[in-house]
């Protein structure tokens, strides 16, 4: 159970899937942190 070999191409699918959701999140965090810098006098 859970130790069967992974289907072919699964690693690429994992990378692409996480990139599709990860890049917008990183973009959002960057933009928000940039906008909150005035709060700390930046």
């Amino acid at each position, binding site marked *: *159970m*859970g*130790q*069967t*070999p*992974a*289907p072919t191409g*699964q690693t690429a*699918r*994992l990378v692409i*899937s*996480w990139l*599709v*959701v990860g890049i*917008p*999140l990183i*973009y*959002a*965090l960057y*933009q*928000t*942190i940039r*906008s*909150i*810098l*005035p*709060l700390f006098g930046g």
Partner: protein
Amino acid sequence: MAALSFLDREHTVAKPGYSRWLIPPAALAIHLCIGQAYATSVYKNALVAHFDTSLTAIGIIFSIAIVMLGVSAAVMGTWVERVGPRAAMFTAACFWASGFLIGALGIATGQLWLVYLGYGFVGGIGLGIGYISPVSTLIKWFPDRPGLATGMAIMGFGGGALVASPLSRQLMSLYDPNYDAATGRASGGAVAALFLTLGIVYFLVMMLGVFNVKVPAPGWRPAGFDPAKLRAKPMITRANVSAANALRTPQFWLLWTVLFCNVTAGIGILEQASPMIQDFFREGGTSTVAATAATAFVGLLSIFNMAGRFAWSSTSDFIGRKPTYVMYLGVGIVLYVLLAVAGNSSTAVFVLLAAVIISFYGGGFSTVPAYLRDLFGTYQVGAIHGRLLTAWSAAGIAGPLIINGFLDARGEPGELVAADYRPALFTMVGVLAVGFVANLLIRPVAERFHETEGHTDAFAEAGKR
């Protein structure tokens, strides 16, 4: 329809070796898109000018969407469980994207009722179905870490607003060279184009979730996971309770009260965040906190809201769900008292207290599906979660009513000071205390509510063995 048969539950059972780490990005793809609902303020002023109407009339678009979220999550929960996550996510994507497209048509033709119907009603149905669609699947794939799994997905709902705000500003400035970022004024055509773009982009991103999501085969367990360890914990059941029966248990209504109280208290601060920080540091009629810094404070709270959803929910896997809510509500009471009596001592103290409070607010949302799993089992946990979300809709009305009611009685906006917030904050302390007691009263569900052998689905039956 044969072309849509790939959506059927039986076609979504994972083959051996399918990585469960494909499920969180599938869930995130849905929640990141529907989280846009909390970024409507970006184009609010543009719509007020375009339709030549009031802020209240435009605010109704958001209100309809949130009401429809609660209604569709509660009503469609059992259907979502029956058809499976892929069909539910596909339906959510169709409703959510259609909402934007109908809304765009309404803006382009100057018909506000079409925006109510599109973004509010149709999009709101997509919001509700989308919100609950991945929850029970995540819990089944991560029996060892349900808090981590639901935390990742529901964090996406908080992150969706963070993504949509700057993205919408950039798109509006692209579509309208005269776009004024300071006032949020853009032409109606630019907002219509924005809606059209978001509708198409969100549909495509949500399709990533549709194609990646799969349910585990009955009896599947992650490597190294020993269900016997879970069964040894008294607050985690191995039985299953149907959604209909769950409503008859005191546990459901106690948890409803817990969620209602946690959200009411948090929403009170979130809704008032920007004027609140300025009012707390007002001396002689002038605030020492600039408007830009107050806006930045709202952004900071959004980050803590999102981070709390992931961090606290993941922590609940180790310390247990009940102790986690003891922390949200108990420590929350202390933080609200400190905010009321010492919040105006320095901006750093104020920001720190508010940030932790909002992280508890976010954590309350993402920990609750795992709490439901612990109490009611996996059988219809998504449907039960859908019904529980009515607490969110109720808190969405109660929280702002409490804070605005007290503030209206104390004076005019722009003239309030820290002391004017104390009655509202102490009322929130009382609300949190009610939730704290409700959480302490939660015990395992009585055996008479459990489903008997052979009356649940194959996955739930296999989980009992």
